[in-house]
């Protein structure tokens, strides 16, 4: 609105100016905090704009590089994880895995849908902070079992049933923070699996109870290998904070695979301040991690899985061009199976939100039946149909990534390389260590 819209007598006045610092959303949050006295908890990842894969472009083929034929020529997508120590590495048809999300945070049908979709697309899915359910084991041909600080539901039988073990040190949405699952979602079954009283607001520990630091981690990994006869690949998952050192230390501790999760990575629930203000953007994590692997002579020997804001085949291709062996998706998989679907708009409104912005996943009232334990709501999600959607989406992402790889002249997604990329912004150029578009320069490049 401008002043001329407000009728008044007298000389012209200055237009009212909104503050960029004290914007309406900022002030609304101040008022909310003042009224309630407690921080905002929500699900999802960082919502602010940070440098991301969108700030990179592929160069494509040219005189010096020739492309592969779009549909005819072979472009492999398979990846093997856990080749360093595990007797039984995991073979995946596509380099896109489903990230760890707990039964508890997600409904039973949602977990089943993830298992079905991932299995149909030839990839793995992952348990979460709440243990392994027989349903998800049954519906996932390849299942990664998370070993978390809370150790909810942890037991040697499930450990041996897993195809790989992921030691979770941190998550990109909240590096340094533990999980939380609010009382509305602690149903009888969730309470029993976690050995907790029903209906409490559950906090999970932020630190492992029986090890601290890389030297201990090495011994912890030894123990897990001994229990499982050195069969399973052992992943170490870290939030994006000090990717060079965390990767180097995970390798030193004996990891087969490093999982690196940037700040856009989703969570089921944590403080908004944590999500938005702690950790590095995914784009800023990859090169330092790859550098650490290269410095140790371990690139491709120890596989790197990158997650946090992966949405398209272009994102997959970009992460791999920067040196990742595979990616993991959380939020995108939930959207594929029906999260934030416009068909629930009326119900999102009733919950004080709107399609695309709904993030009160911790409250357990998800109209789409995904982030809930309410039997009526979860019955809305058909796991077979939702699984099919996920499979389709994974297939599309794979085809997209292949399209790009072929255009860049590669017969395997893994052959994508930083030289295939340029950056649209100086920030992205610095983080990805690829030249700013139209130049041969990026910040920090030697010789300038």
């Amino acid at each position, binding site marked *: 609105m401008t002043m001329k819209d407000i009728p008044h007598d007298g000389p012209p006045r200055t237009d009212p100016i909104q503050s960029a610092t004290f914007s309406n959303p900022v002030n609304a949050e101040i008022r909310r905090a003042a009224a309630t006295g*407690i921080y905002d908890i929500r699900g999802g990842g960082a919502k602010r704009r940070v440098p991301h894969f969108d700030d990179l472009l592929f160069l494509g083929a040219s005189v010096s590089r020739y492309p592969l034929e779009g549909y005819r020529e072979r472009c492999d997508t398979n990846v093997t994880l856990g080749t360093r120590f595990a007797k039984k590495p995991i073979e995946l048809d596509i380099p896109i895995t489903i990230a760890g999300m707990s039964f508890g945070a997600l409904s039973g049908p949602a977990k089943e849908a993830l298992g079905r979709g991932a299995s149909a697309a030839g990839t793995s899915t992952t348990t979460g902070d709440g243990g392994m359910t027989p349903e998800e084991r049954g519906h996932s041909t390849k299942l990664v079992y998370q070993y978390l600080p*809370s*150790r909810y539901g*942890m037991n*040697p039988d499930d450990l041996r049933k897993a195809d790989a073990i992921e030691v979770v040190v941190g998550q990109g949405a909240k590096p340094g923070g533990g999980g939380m699952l*609010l009382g509305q979602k602690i149903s009888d079954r969730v309470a029993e699996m976690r050995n*907790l009283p029903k209906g409490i607001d559950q906090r999970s520990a932020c630190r492992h*109870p029986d090890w601290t630091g890389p030297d*201990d981690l090495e011994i912890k990994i030894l*123990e897990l290998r001994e229990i499982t006869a050195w069969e399973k690949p052992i992943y170490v998952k870290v939030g994006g904070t000090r990717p060079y050192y965390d990767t180097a230390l995970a390798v030193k501790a004996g990891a087969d695979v490093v999982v690196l999760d940037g700040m856009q990575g989703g969570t089921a629930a944590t403080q908004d301040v944590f999500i938005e203000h702690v950790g590095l953007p995914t784009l800023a994590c990859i090169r330092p991690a790859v550098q650490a692997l290269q410095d140790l002579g371990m690139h491709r020997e120890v596989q790197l899985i990158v997650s946090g804001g992966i949405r398209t085949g272009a994102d997959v291709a970009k992460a791999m061009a920067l040196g990742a062996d595979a990616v993991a998706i959380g939020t995108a998989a939930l959207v594929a199976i029906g999260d934030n679907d416009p068909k629930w708009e009326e119900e999102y409104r009733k919950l004080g939100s709107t399609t695309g912005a709904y993030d009160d996943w911790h409250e357990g009232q998800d109209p789409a039946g995904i982030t809930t334990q309410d039997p009526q709501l979860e019955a809305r999600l058909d796991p077979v149909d939702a699984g099919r959607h996920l499979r389709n989406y994974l297939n599309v992402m794979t085809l997209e990534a292949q399209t790009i790889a072929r255009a860049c002249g590669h017969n395997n997604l893994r052959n994508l390389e930083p030289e295939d990329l340029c950056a649209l912004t100086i920030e992205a150029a610095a983080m990805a260590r690829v030249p700013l578009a139209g130049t041969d320069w990026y910040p920090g490049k030697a010789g300038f």
Partner: protein
Amino acid sequence: MQTYDLESGDLRCLNASLHAQAEATNQTAWEVVNPRGSHAIAVGLDAPIEVNVKGSTGYYCAGMNKQATVHIHGSAGPGVAENMMSGTVIVDGDASQYAGATGNGGTLVIKGNASSRCGISMKGIDIVVHGDVGHMSAFMAQSGNLVVCGDAGDALGDSIYEARLFVRGSVKSLGADCVEKEMRPEHIELLRDLLARGGCDAKPEEFKRYGSARQLYNFKIDNAY
């Protein structure tokens, strides 16, 4: 009885042999000599066998134990009997940090003292310590019983859920949300049984009981930390 020498044999072979013992094995008695502080000795066992470790162990001895009895004739390094499911683990000497961490079941007996974070995140295990326990013991303890015949260090039972803590001596300080609770006849009975299983001749009447005030169970303004 089978004897395994960790000086000449390697850890993988030892654990593989112990894992190969089926439910109905008749080779129930094992002796491990020269443990020399090795890590991950006798982890992931799942048969009703008895393993006597003749000396001190490193990290995670008897981790994730099911059914077996593991007797350490020495002291135990960090995380002894971590995540135990069932069976019995006995430490003749002292135990380092995180003894019995996240244990789901079975009995852990420590005849000496236990260091800090004994019973951290315990989920159903019973732990009997003849001596003292260090700071932050039973942190976030979910269920099961921790019996301390000596004294407890700082912040006992911080952020505790439903585990029961019994201490005979002094408690340096209680952690957040941990309070002294009434010793009712059923607790005396429970403790009598725990002490008997732990081979301890202390009298249940000499103990005090501690547990959760349940004030941190829901996020409230005053709990937001």
